[in-house]
């Protein structure tokens, strides 16, 4: 059967030949010093767009191409861990935190830190004095009101820290009045995040779940369980919708419907609200204090320069350029960042007063808030703690909102998980 054999052989030949052809498509890694500098980050339109603009400006000024590699936020850590394993790290990264997996593959940024003066407590050195990461920008927790609703109900609210800032009892009472007078659904909604929850705890007599000075243990003060209990009780489908914390309903979208009097979120929402809220006026206000006025603030992300790319010097030059006061002010303006370095004045395109309010909130927060962040960072750069798979405080609080455990158990369980990561 000659015809059969030819055809069969041809088919089999084609199939085997195609595999190496496919295998040959693609496959070269970075490493050459002339190649573009890869800068991996995760940014929404504002943040990613800000870095892209700065990369273009840098290319115009120096001829060096910085390629922004935008990766989905939830998988940024996974992606970079795998790149480290593949020995194909990008030149620069803007990472959510410092990861022990690639910590020893970072370049020391101590010289740049000395020049650009990041805000104290927003960066840390390891025991050898190496500073592996610099804060890219600050975020702070804050509160937004649907101004139209509050005005319609004729309820007053503070607009600056010069006023006597309201207590949580006063705020909840005012928000209830607004809700009832305007017929909206809820008084308040808060992002499903321990960063926001910690801020609430600070305002209610707790110091959150904090590392001790020697980084050996997480502890909570006596006020923590009580403050948590207060938060859990607020999730009653009247004051706050339980769906946000229990089923991850989007609080940002809820606020945009105009059915919520107040939204407890943070500075990163300003740019989005300017763009995407047209139906009502909104305003940033000081958060309630009972008794302490406090916001939770920290570095939104960490800039790191990776080692072993052959482009370390070019990457350091770019980072130094990015942090120069003029350029840093520019990216802060474009991306709607709060600056993470000292002495940088930013003129924002819109809502300057809101950014000023956030800066005032940071300045007026008690010292322990900064210390908590500082210790967290010190722990990260020491590389001794195992990465956590979830967020113990948030996850345990969700259990309490669904009625499975008590506030005391939230504290107990979350501390146990955090301390286990130190062991």
């Amino acid at each position, binding site marked *: *059967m000659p015809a059969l054999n030819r055809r069969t052989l041809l088919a089999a030949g084609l199939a085997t030949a195609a595999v190496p052809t*496919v295998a040959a498509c*693609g496959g070269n890694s970075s490493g050459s010093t002339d190649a573009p500098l890869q800068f991996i980050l*995760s940014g*929404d339109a504002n943040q990613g767009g800000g870095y892209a603009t700065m990369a273009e400006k840098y290319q115009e000024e120096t001829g060096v191409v910085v*390629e922004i590699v935008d990766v989905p936020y*939830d998988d940024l850590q996974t992606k970079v861990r795998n790149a480290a394993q593949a020995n*194909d790290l990008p030149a620069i990264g803007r990472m959510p935190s410092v990861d022990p997996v690639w910590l020893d593959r970072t370049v020391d940024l101590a010289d740049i830190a000395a020049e650009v003066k990041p805000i104290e407590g927003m960066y840390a050195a390891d025991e050898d004095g190496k500073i592996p990461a610099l804060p890219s920008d600050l975020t702070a927790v804050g509160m937004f009101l649907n101004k139209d609703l509050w005005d319609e109900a004729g309820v007053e609210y503070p607009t600056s820290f010069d006023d006597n800032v309201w207590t949580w009892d006063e705020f909840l009472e005012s928000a209830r009045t607004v809700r009832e007078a305007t017929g909206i659904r809820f008084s308040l909604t808060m992002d499903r995040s321990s960063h926001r929850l910690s801020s609430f705890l600070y305002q209610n007599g707790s110091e959150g779940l904090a590392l001790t000075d020697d980084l050996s243990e997480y502890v909570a003060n006596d006020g923590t369980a009580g403050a948590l209990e207060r938060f859990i009780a607020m999730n009653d489908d009247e004051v706050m919708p339980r769906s946000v914390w229990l089923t991850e309903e989007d609080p940002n979208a809820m606020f945009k419907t105009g059915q919520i009097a107040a939204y407890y979120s943070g500075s990163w929402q300003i740019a989005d609200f300017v763009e995407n809220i047209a139906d009502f006026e909104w305003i940033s206000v000081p958060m309630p204090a009972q008794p302490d006025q406090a916001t939770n603030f920290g570095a939104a992300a960490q800039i790191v320069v990776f080692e072993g790319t052959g482009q370390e010097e070019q990457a350091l030059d770019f980072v130094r350029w990015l942090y120069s006061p003029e350029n840093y002010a520019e990216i802060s303006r474009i991306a709607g960042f709060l600056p993470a370095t000292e002495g940088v004045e930013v003129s924002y395109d819109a809502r300057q007063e809101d950014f000023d309010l956030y800066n005032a909130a940071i300045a007026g927060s008690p010292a322990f808030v900064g210390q908590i962040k500082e210790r967290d960072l010190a722990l990260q750069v020491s590389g001794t703690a195992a990465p956590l798979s979830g967020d113990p405080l948030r996850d345990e609080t969700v259990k309490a909102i669904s009625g499975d455990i008590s506030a005391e158990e939230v504290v107990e369980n979350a501390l146990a998980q955090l301390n286990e990561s130190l062991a």
Partner: protein
Amino acid sequence: MTPTTRTAPSTRWIAPTALLWALAALFLIPVAWFLLSSFKPGSELFTWPLRLFPQDWTLDGYRTAWSRFDFQTYFLNTAFVAVVTTVFTVFVSACTGFALAKYRNRWVQAFFLMILATTMLPTEVIMPSTFAVILGLGLYNSLAGIIIPSIITATGIFMFRQFFLTVPDELLQAARIDGAGEFRIFFTLMLPIARPIIAVLAIFSFQWRWNDYIWPLLVLNDQDKYTLQIALRSIVGAENIDWSVLLGASVISLIPMVLLFLVFRRQIMNSDISSGLKD
């Protein structure tokens, strides 16, 4: 036939047909909402009370999505990966399914059980070892690194095996008596009658690869090799989602799948998988 008997069947069908239309309309609502929302400006997406139609029709989401992403490259990469993987998946699954269905040997059966067992493992579990293999083979950061591990699917093999089991052995024996060899039996007899399975697996495989996300994300490092899904997910920021861009980009990314459905509608709907057989 009286007029009464002629109209009776049509009246009998009115209620079920209306019900089916109503159900179809229900399924259409989310799609219609999604499509219409992509023409709304960001400020209209969450207005209360909800409105189906945009008040202020805009293509801004599409424009931003199109200018922000190199769709052409992502389309080409994704299409290349989806087409090549699909061709190989169908061929390899058909060969394996045929062997598992038509050759009697206890080791073949044991092998089949092992293939089936792989469906019990979540992809995430085998991902680190697959990644190590891809690295070792030098396929990291290449489209081949996405294609090769995706070719063999237990589902595809299972589909072909079950189909070939239904083909009577007498058909093969008759072909053998007529002098056909095993390759000829496979290529000229079995493959043609398996056309419906080929179509179904091809459509599934294309869809799986088109929508694949986590594996391309891990394997690809160069933005020029990114696939569509990685680009789409990058619109979701840490705290904010740019909904109008996401909606526009999602609609654009759907178009090839819709075209695929329109072209292969008959095969997708075809359940007559025993065509060509007389038993």
